[in-house]
């Protein structure tokens, strides 16, 4: 398994809404962020949840978003950020 994205790269979270067990929160779907770490391969939780092997493992990334871009009515500071761990099957090149 080699990671498709590198630290510093801009990525977009797929705006997908499939059924089932998912670890990608709704509030980042369709949003653009920046990879801050490549955490390594982890078995796919969307498969593990149903008693399957979760193989092949997926690269897992830390992705940092500007919080103001996640919410229409965000009232924090402009530099506030949100970091979410996202599996590679949810990421596209931005």
């Amino acid at each position, binding site marked *: 398994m080699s990671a498709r994205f590198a630290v510093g790269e801009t990525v977009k979270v797929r705006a997908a809404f499939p059924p089932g067990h998912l*670890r990608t*929160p709704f509030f980042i779907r369709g949003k653009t962020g920046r990879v801050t770490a490549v955490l390594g391969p982890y078995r796919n939780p969307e498969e593990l949840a149903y008693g399957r092997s979760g193989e092949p493992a997926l690269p*897992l990334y830390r992705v940092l978003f500007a919080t103001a871009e996640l919410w229409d009515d965000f009232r*924090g*500071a402009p530099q*506030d950020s*949100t*970091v979410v761990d996202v599996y590679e099957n949810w990421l596209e090149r931005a």
Partner: protein
Amino acid sequence: MAHEHDHDHHGHDHGDHHHGHAHRSHPYQPDLEEKPLTHFQVMTEAVADLLIEKGIITADELRAMLEAIDAKSPAAGARMVARAWADASFKARMLEDVNRAATELGIDAGGIPIRAVENTDRVHNVIVCTLCSCYPRLLIGLPPDWYKSRAYRSRTVREPRAVLAEFGTTIPDGVELRVHDSTADLRYMVLPARPAGTDGWDEERLAGLVTRDCMIGVTLPKPAG
């Protein structure tokens, strides 16, 4: 943050106390068993019974495991933070790999990878799990009820400064408030900044400043007045 302790259920309604009918008018706290067991509770009990019946584990081993889990406290995490404050090279190793750094202090942080995120004068970190209640239990104990509440999980990503204000914590406008949503395979803890006025303190005294809430990021360590 709503602290939902249901105090009303414990209240004694003295204004409406009818002697001889106290059992009717006296509110009581429901027993744990009052609600029907859920599907997963039944399954859990069944699996535990089977494991014991088949001799794979004993009832005492199961009990001891539950006791060990419940006995975890924030003390281990606090010791690590204090060591990191006292020893810059330990801090670097802790930021690299919390689980491995923990072994230097004889602490077992378990097999789930834990990362520490460091507060600085430019960034303040706070941890949430919006999907459930993921939490580095082996280092900071069982999560508080509010950490698992829908209010904390949904609001911390949407209005983190308002949530922190309800904990009595104000982050200056110029500081980046960084929220970490631990939705996957890693767990996160905050490495708070060492408070001013603690020069010369030994690690034990420093560890006394590091509370559970400091390591979740909803408050800051405060030097004893």
